[in-house]
């Protein structure tokens, strides 16, 4: 008798507990909600430069700088297909022949940048100082180079940086010889100066 009473009492209790549990679960899963979504677009900028001015002070037909005769000459031009590249040809050079160059680089990108120190065939130049370069790697200095200004100047998009370059032929250069060289100029994002 006692057992029957206990059974009768337990069933409603179990049902009640089950209902309570289900209602809690239902509250958890079926509550009203709203989701907010943020759609983002990030467009990165460009670090880009272009050579826009490149000339020298001794074009053909002009008296050599510092002298009284027209012996050597230099010709400069910017690659019409790629303004990242400019050229210079120095012809009939001789010891102590010196030419000056002016170069403007425009910031054609969207990020400010600064110009790093130019390098001639991997040799880093020094602002305002002649730097000897052995162009044919024969152990003798063939020419020295000097650049002035430009270094670490921050240039905003659309702006220009101007620097001057000088090339001087050394006594130990070999007559009747053609030397080639490459000057690389890196422009780096402004906030890494």
């Amino acid at each position: 008798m006692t057992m029957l009473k206990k059974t009768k009492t337990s069933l409603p209790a179990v049902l009640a507990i089950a209902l309570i549990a289900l209602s809690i679960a239902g509250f958890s899963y079926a509550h009203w909600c709203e989701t907010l979504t943020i759609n983002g677009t990030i467009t990165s900028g460009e670090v880009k430069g272009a050579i826009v001015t490149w000339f020298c002070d001794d074009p053909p037909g002009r008296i050599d700088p510092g002298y009284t005769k027209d012996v050597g000459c230099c010709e400069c031009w910017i690659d019409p297909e790629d303004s990242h590249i400019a050229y210079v040809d120095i012809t009939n050079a001789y010891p102590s022949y010196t030419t000056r160059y002016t170069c403007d680089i425009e910031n054609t990108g969207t990020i400010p940048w600064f110009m790093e120190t130019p390098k001639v065939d991997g040799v880093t130049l020094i602002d305002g100082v002649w730097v000897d370069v052995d162009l044919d790697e024969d152990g003798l200095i063939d020419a020295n180079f000097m650049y002035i200004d430009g270094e670490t100047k921050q240039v905003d998009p659309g702006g220009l940086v101007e620097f001057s370059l000088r090339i001087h032929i050394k006594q130990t250069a070999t007559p009747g010889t053609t030397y080639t060289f490459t000057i690389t100029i890196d422009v780096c994002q402004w906030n890494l100066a």
Partner: protein
Amino acid sequence: MDTKKIMATFAILMMALGVAGYAYAHWFDTLYLEGTITTGTVDVEWSWDGGLINGVKPNQYVVATMTGVITDNTLTITISNVFPCLEGWFEIDVHNTGSIPVQFCDSVCTIGGTDLTPWIEYRESWSGEGTCDQIDPDQTVVLDVWFHFMQENDAHVTMPQGATMTFSCELIFCNWNEPCPD
């Protein structure tokens, strides 16, 4: 404890990679100036232009003779059977066959045999113009040399007979913009 160590190692590794990425991955652009330098040439040639002895052309005078022969860059001058008071002159054409103006820079002379220089006086002149008698490319200038054999030298010693003197002179031409020789 092990978990902490692993976490610390992982954190350090992440930081190192971050620093390396910062250092190597900065944005940049590179511009190039491509250059060519062609040096000129210094090249001089000369030619024997003849001369006169005592006002008579060489080999037409019965006593003394003078000849000039050029081999490569060497001019050999032979004056034979000279005697006191003999005088004469000769001309040498110097032609710039290079692409750079040149100037006479220096001469180095050596003497062999009997040294007759104490009995020789000479003068030289160039027809070149401008600073240091420059010679432009394709230009020719004339070197005139006048000479005279003296009876006696400064010590009143008579010029020796039957003597032979040889001499060799290098004329050095250099690029035009060097300092003028003394």
